[in-house]
């Protein structure tokens, strides 16, 4: 059968971000997928080295709008790992509240967008109507709907006003009945079952092989969650469950996200009710030379930051590994063999966030081909050998 190439992107209603997927199709079946990135590369890591440790938080926050807490959370943890210090108790709770609030709105957003991709605009509208309430809560607590600017190394920048807490709790409580109804409606919908079940299968072995993270891996039965595995913030102080399903398909990912929202609501409510008193900031004056790592379970999976300090007030090296970076390769396993209609929802199912991922774009001199992992390792080894030869080390 004749092969043709269908491009999704760079400007496509499926994605809010400029990203290019080249789907090689035979009729309606996708046989290969190639990702071309670089439309969103902004040189964040380099910019971060330009700013001092406090200012970097704002660059990091703008890596991604939807993970605008996850990246600063991982970054501040990395910086605190250099010194190392323990964050005050109240700051831990505030961080957890903001991070979980973000998870709720991110999952609601995903639901809306998934509905939109399936042509189910009503779900999109219903879910985003709920999301408005969560965004209101975030505006009450932090002062902006999306960019919270709450994090700083050693604590949080602003305190949560105790007068605002009852209003926030009321707003969160108000969405629960509607969410319940929508949950049942979605779980019962036969057409959604027909569209989502059994497509985009990522088996448990594949999930481990590709190092899938977050809901993508938990939907494949890999129980991995930084919040449980290596607790931080206030995650070990409140009671919550990790959601894992075994169904391995897009449906599983949807269910994981749906149930995770309830856990997040539980965490936010508990934290708001039991907010301890005390300091919110350690007032870190200087950062000693050294290295630190920080991880945070973003709505899309584990976000990992590495920061090296050389004793000045700026990071000497800052490396970001976003969750989508690990989830994106799983498309190689899930997309080929599906139809174009399925491919779009499978692409969406990992909740891709390309602006997080665009840390590097590797191309050959000719400007076309992207290197895979193996080739990158080979190139790196060759370069190391070359440098060794030049320096005369055997």
């Amino acid at each position, binding site marked *: 059968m004749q092969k043709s190439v269908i491009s999704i992107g760079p400007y496509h209603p499926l994605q809010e971000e400029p990203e290019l997927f080249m789907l090689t199709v035979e009729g309606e079946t996708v046989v290969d997928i190639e990702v071309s990135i670089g439309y969103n590369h902004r040189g964040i890591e380099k910019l971060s080295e330009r700013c001092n440790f406090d200012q970097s938080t704002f660059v990091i926050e703008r890596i991604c709008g939807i993970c605008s807490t996850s990246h600063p959370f991982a970054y501040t943890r990395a910086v605190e790992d250099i010194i190392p210090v323990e964050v005050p108790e109240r700051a831990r709770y505030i961080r957890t509240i903001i991070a979980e609030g973000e998870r709720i709105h991110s999952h609601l957003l995903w639901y809306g967008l998934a509905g939109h991709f*399936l*042509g*189910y605009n*009503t779900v999109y509208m219903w879910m985003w109507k709920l999301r408005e309430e969560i965004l209101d809560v975030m505006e009450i607590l932090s002062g902006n709907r999306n960019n919270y600017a709450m994090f700083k190394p050693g604590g949080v920048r602003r305190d949560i006003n105790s007068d605002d807490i009852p209003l926030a709790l009321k707003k969160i409580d108000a969405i629960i009945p509607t969410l319940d109804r929508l949950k049942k409606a979605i779980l019962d919908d036969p057409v959604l079952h027909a569209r989502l079940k059994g497509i985009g299968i990522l088996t448990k072995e594949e999930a481990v092989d590709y190092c899938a993270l977050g809901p993508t891996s938990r939907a494949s039965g890999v129980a991995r969650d930084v919040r449980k595995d290596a607790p931080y913030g206030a995650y070990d102080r409140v009671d919550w469950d990790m959601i894992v399903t075994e169904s391995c398909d897009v449906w599983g990912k949807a269910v994981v996200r749906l149930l995770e929202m309830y856990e997040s609501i539980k965490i936010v409510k508990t934290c708001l009710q039991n907010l301890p008193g005390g300091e919110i900031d350690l007032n870190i004056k200087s950062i000693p030379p050294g290295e630190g790592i920080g991880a945070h379970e973003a709505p899309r999976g584990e976000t990992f930051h590495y920061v090296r300090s050389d004793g000045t007030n700026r990071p000497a090296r800052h490396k970001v590994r976003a969750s989508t970076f690990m989830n994106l390769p799983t498309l190689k396993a899930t997309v080929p063999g599906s139809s174009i*209609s399925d491919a*779009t929802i499978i692409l969406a199912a990992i909740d891709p966030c390309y602006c997080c991922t665009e840390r590097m774009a590797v191309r050959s001199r000719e400007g076309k081909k992207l290197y895979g992992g193996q080739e990158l390792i080979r190139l790196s080894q060759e370069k190391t050998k070359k440098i060794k030869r030049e320096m005369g080390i055997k």
Partner: protein
Amino acid sequence: MEITRYIFAFLIFPGFLFTVIVGLFSTWVDRKVTARVQWRVGPPLMQPLYDFVKLLGKETLIPAGGSRAVFLSAPIVGLVAVILVSTILWLANLWGTAFVGDLIVVVYLLVIPSLAIMIGGLASGNPLATTGASREMKLILAYELPFLICMATVILKSGMSIKLVEIAKTPIIGSISGVLVALIALLCIQAKLGFVPFDVAEAETEIMSGPYIEYSGVPLAVFKLTQATMLFTLPIFLITAFLGGLNFSGWGILWTVLKYLAILVLIVVIKNTNPRVRIDQAVKFFWYYLAPVAAAAFVLAVFGQIYAISWL
């Protein structure tokens, strides 16, 4: 004189002008109901007209790789076909003007808008439009089978008549097979209109509006108009075929408007409470589920006809 009357009928009432105005109003109803189901306010009453006028004033871009003449004429063919259908339906309902076999002509003409979309998409030379056109083709093949069986049932129930005037006189919804075929025809019309769950051909988030992707300006306006008139004509066709036709004497006007609005709202609600299905699922749905049910209804109708049981 006769010719002037037909030209008047085609261009002013109940043809072009009337169909377009009511069609744009139906689009407004569609958008408003959609908005209200989604907790929104929705557009103002004149919005479809504004959209149309705006598109008329926009620049028309013609894709470099496509065939210019076909690309530009495709929308007009579709529109003319729908207007013809509308004229025939109204003439039959209003003045009883009909010719033998007008039902068959209508059924044929109703395929032409879809064909026009397909041809236009193929002429634009865009790979996504081509995908959309091929999906449209599959979809036509899928829904035409149950639709034709439905029509056969209708002909059977109305005493083997293929004249719309006589079909309109027998409201065949009053029997089991009638209800079944009416529901199936409703779903087929959903597909004909290109509404969710069968909007695979122009899936915005998959293939970026499919065949419409390269259209802009006046041809796009004509396509939008075609859709609007379809939204008016197809429910009228349903009413004529299944619900006893239009009636304009006394309270009949209100009853007719209610029938029309009820079908319109039903279509819009179906559109808004379903996700889009895949093209293979759509084909399967029409062939494996609806076609056998339609065939069963046909058999029921045959039995009803033979043994003279009116409720079958």
